[in-house]
């Protein structure tokens, strides 16, 4: 499989007339407030380095003003960086010519937006074909491909409605179908589910995870919601004031928060849904009748043990051979004990 990882290197964005002049000052530790007060420039991103793995979901998390939306817009260069590189398939997006960038956006990326950004004067299916229409794909083919994806996101029968006639959740499904119809290697999702109410948001997350099993795209997902980040992210990077303050898997972040800011963040997290059995298992002893696949979350493991009435379970790998064991007590301990900090 082709390597569709994205490499973000030393990325800086300083908003203002002469951003490039202040990179050195920022490198030397000038704060966001100082930069704004003294030079009237706004620090957007500061020395971002993220390796976004191929065919995985990379979540970028942060509160508003942390620079996460600015960050994702550098990947398809809706925003030009002040300095730095975004490398995809050996090419630096930041150095592409206008024509190359247009081709790159048409064929390599697709984007889903927080406010849906559908064309209000077009029907659902005509919105879905939008990307293919820009590529110049012929009418019949683009219609067929659009209908395929509309079916996949559960919008069959709504293809001739206008966006305004649909609920928010359904509108965002159109947004998702529009992006998927492009069949691009990179899927950019800018707070795609943030405008939806909690139940529908969960629904959409499930749809995305289901789809990703077959799609295997490199997804960059922006969110301000930690639960969403932990549920979706194979990799998570946390941004604050335009800088990455921690990156790793959800479990790594929950178990070892880099600072008190993140520790505060993860206090309320349901740890049973984040920590995997592999983290707390001990050497295999084969003394249990139930087996739990490696990589399962603690909550799931605890549920299985409680239901079967066993206090112990074996952890098995994908070849079904035992690689360790956990006890119900150790599972519950790990679920309720906050990380040491």
């Amino acid at each position, binding site marked *: 499989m082709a390597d569709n990882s994205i490499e973000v290197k030393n990325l800086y964005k300083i908003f203002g007339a002469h951003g490039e002049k202040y990179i050195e000052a920022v490198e030397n530790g000038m704060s966001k407030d100082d930069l704004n007060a003294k030079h009237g420039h706004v620090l957007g991103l500061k020395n971002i380095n993220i390796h976004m793995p191929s065919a995985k979901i990379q979540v970028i998390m942060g509160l508003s003003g942390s620079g996460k939306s600015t960050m994702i817009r550098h990947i*398809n260069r809706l925003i030009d960086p002040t300095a730095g590189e975004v490398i995809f398939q050996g090419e630096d997006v930041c150095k592409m010519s206008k024509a190359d960038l247009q081709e790159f*956006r*048409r064929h390599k990326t697709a984007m889903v*937006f927080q406010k849906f*950004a*559908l064309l209000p004067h077009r029907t659902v299916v005509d919105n879905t074909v939008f*990307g293919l229409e*820009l590529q110049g794909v012929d009418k019949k083919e683009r219609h067929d491909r659009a209908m395929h994806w509309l079916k996949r996101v559960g919008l069959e029968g709504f293809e001739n409605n206008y966006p*305004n006639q649909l*609920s928010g959740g359904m509108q965002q499904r159109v947004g998702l179908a529009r992006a998927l119809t492009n069949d691009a290697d990179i899927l950019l999702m800018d707070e795609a589910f943030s405008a939806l109410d909690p139940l529908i948001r969960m629904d959409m997350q499930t749809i995305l995870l289901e789809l990703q099993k077959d799609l295997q795209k490199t997804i960059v997902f922006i969110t301000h919601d930690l639960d969403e980040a932990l549920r979706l992210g194979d990799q998570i990077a946390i941004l604050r004031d335009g800088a990455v303050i921690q990156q790793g898997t959800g479990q790594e972040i929950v178990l070892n928060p880099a600072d008190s800011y993140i520790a505060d963040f993860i206090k309320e997290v349901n740890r049973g849904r984040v920590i995997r059995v592999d983290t707390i298992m001990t050497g295999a002893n084969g003394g249990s009748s139930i087996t739990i696949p490696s990589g399962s979350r603690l909550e799931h493991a605890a549920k299985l043990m409680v239901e079967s009435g066993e206090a112990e379970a074996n952890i098995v790998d994908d070849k079904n051979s035992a690689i360790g064991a956990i006890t119900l007590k150790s599972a519950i301990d790990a679920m309720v004990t906050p990380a040491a900090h």
Partner: protein
Amino acid sequence: MSTDNTEAGLNLTELLTEFPEMSRGDLRDFKKGIDETFRDFTREWGESIEGFFVPLLKILVWFEKLVVATPWPLMIVILAALVYAGARSWGLVAGTVASLLVIGYLGMWEDMMFTLALISVATALCIIIGIPLGILMSKSDRTQAVITPVLDFMQTIPSFVYLIPILMLLGIGKVPGLIAVCIYAIPPVVRLTNLGIRLVDKDVLEAADAFGASPRQKLFTVQLPLALPNIFAGVNQTIMMALAMVVVAALIGVQGLGSEVLKAVNNQYLALGLMNGSAIVAIAIVFDRVSQKFGKRLQKHSEVIHG
């Protein structure tokens, strides 16, 4: 010393009460200079400018002949069909047919056809020139800054004032009348095209960029369709203003309802004035309702069915 002071005082009073005017001779030369320059320009270029407008004249004359020569029952059917196509309202069709019949019965059929022809050609011309101009304005703030004062000027200067150079250049006739109408009527369509494009949702534009739309694709798939309701409001205003100009156009020799109104004013014919004036109002109402309803239909997609 004291005499000097009095003299200075006298001069000051004079200065405050009498405006320091240009001397009469200089002023005359100044005005004459401008007139002569323009007259020379007219002599030099008048014919080629007139030649430039010949195609326009041909179109206008052809169209006038067409509508005047069309048998009246057929014309009524055509107009009724157009009204229905635009507004999808039988009430409006009935109203239109009734007013056409009354206007015809009162002996104004041919004049009305001339006026309709002029308004149609003028509106078409305004749209053909106005929409691209509006698009250009929306693309750059600098272009907007240049064109806006020109439009302000065109809308506020008394129309008789620009009749003078038009008359000097092109004389009396249909084309100068048409140009005078267009100068007055074109600003709304330009302004509202510009405004409509500038008001297009930034999020949708960003989405178009993200999917790799070229500037041309963006214009035709996103900006113009979303600006259409505003553009249409501009076209509606343009039609109304063109109708308001028919009497002024009659001053420089355009035949139609306007010239009858002018005749009525000159001879104090109350009935003639009222009848032709009312005919203009009737046409205006039909145009306005049809174009408004058509504009509303363009926005059908924005009806919110789901709460």
